[in-house]
């Protein structure tokens, strides 16, 4: 339950782990890993987030509805990101006819604004 008291040893361990991971992610940026620079940086960030959420934020010891809210937050974020990226990254797949572009409306603008 939320009554659960996390031992100091665990806090110190998590803190040390977070500092080590910070060092790792900083160091990794100075090594040429190609695309994996980004992958490594994000993977370490997710690992650090997991440590903070589970131990500092006591989620490991907080069952029930707060966990559902947390999962929902991540799920909503995933919806937002995937739909926005699905649009943005695939726009050029289908050529757009010139007459569909916004450019065709521009000559009309002065008339609208008048």
């Amino acid at each position, binding site marked *: 339950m*939320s009554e659960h*008291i996390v031992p100091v040893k665990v806090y*110190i361990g998590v*803190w040390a782990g977070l500092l080590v991971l910070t060092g790792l992610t900083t160091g990794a940026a100075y090594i040429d890993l190609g695309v994996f620079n980004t992958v490594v940086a994000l993977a370490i960030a997710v690992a650090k987030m997991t440590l903070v959420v589970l131990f500092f*934020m006591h989620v490991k010891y907080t069952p029930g509805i707060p966990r559902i809210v947390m999962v929902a937050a991540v799920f909503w974020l995933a919806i937002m990101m995937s739909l926005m990226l699905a649009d943005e990254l695939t726009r050029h797949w289908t050529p757009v006819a010139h007459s569909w572009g916004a450019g065709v409306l521009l000559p009309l603008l002065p008339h609208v604004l008048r």
Partner: protein
Amino acid sequence: MAEMAHPSPEHGHESHVPELVHQFETVEQQREAGTLGMWLFLATEVLFFGGMFCSYLIYRSLHPQAFEIGSHLLEVKFGATNTAVLICSSLSMAMAIYSAQTGKSKKTVILFLVITILLGLAFIGVKLYFEWYHDYLEHIVPGFGFQYRREWGSNGPMVQMFMVFYFAMTGVHALHMVVGVGILTALIIMAARDRFSPQYYAPLDISGLYWHFVDIIWIFLFPLLYLVGGRYMSGGR
């Protein structure tokens, strides 16, 4: 009314906790409701910052070269230092809650809260002076005398866009830190008035959730703004 199923909370076994408000049966239930409320707020914050992360992602994917130049305008040593400072402040926040949970003296609780505030202020100080002020002197603050550099070539406008993202995201994050410092100040006053006990420490617990969340945002901002794409090229500082 005589055959009420549940015992009157005010006169139940929690009667020694004056902070128990009457709509809750137990202190435990009250704390869980508070935790749930804070998590709901944090869920909205996830989407608030998520929107900025998402647009950053899109611009970065469209203009990778300009964002690399922009990223190299930032100094890794300050970003890394501030990451460590925030992690330490999260530890002292956790220790403040632990001290209240285990019934340590109020001096101990206040000491840990003061350490947390000082580390928070150190973070803001590094940001304001060593980063933002020097960015201003180097003319890379959008809207405050931003100047294109010749070596950027045609990437100039999108380098400026990167700096817009940088200042918007770190700015909103720093604003959250300032709010956090205000919350911590209120907690210190409450602790000084003997408001916390092993039975009642919900304000500490909930504020801790907020403080750790702000830490998590920085855990993502640091690699995304300072590191992504790598620093091994000659352009890095």
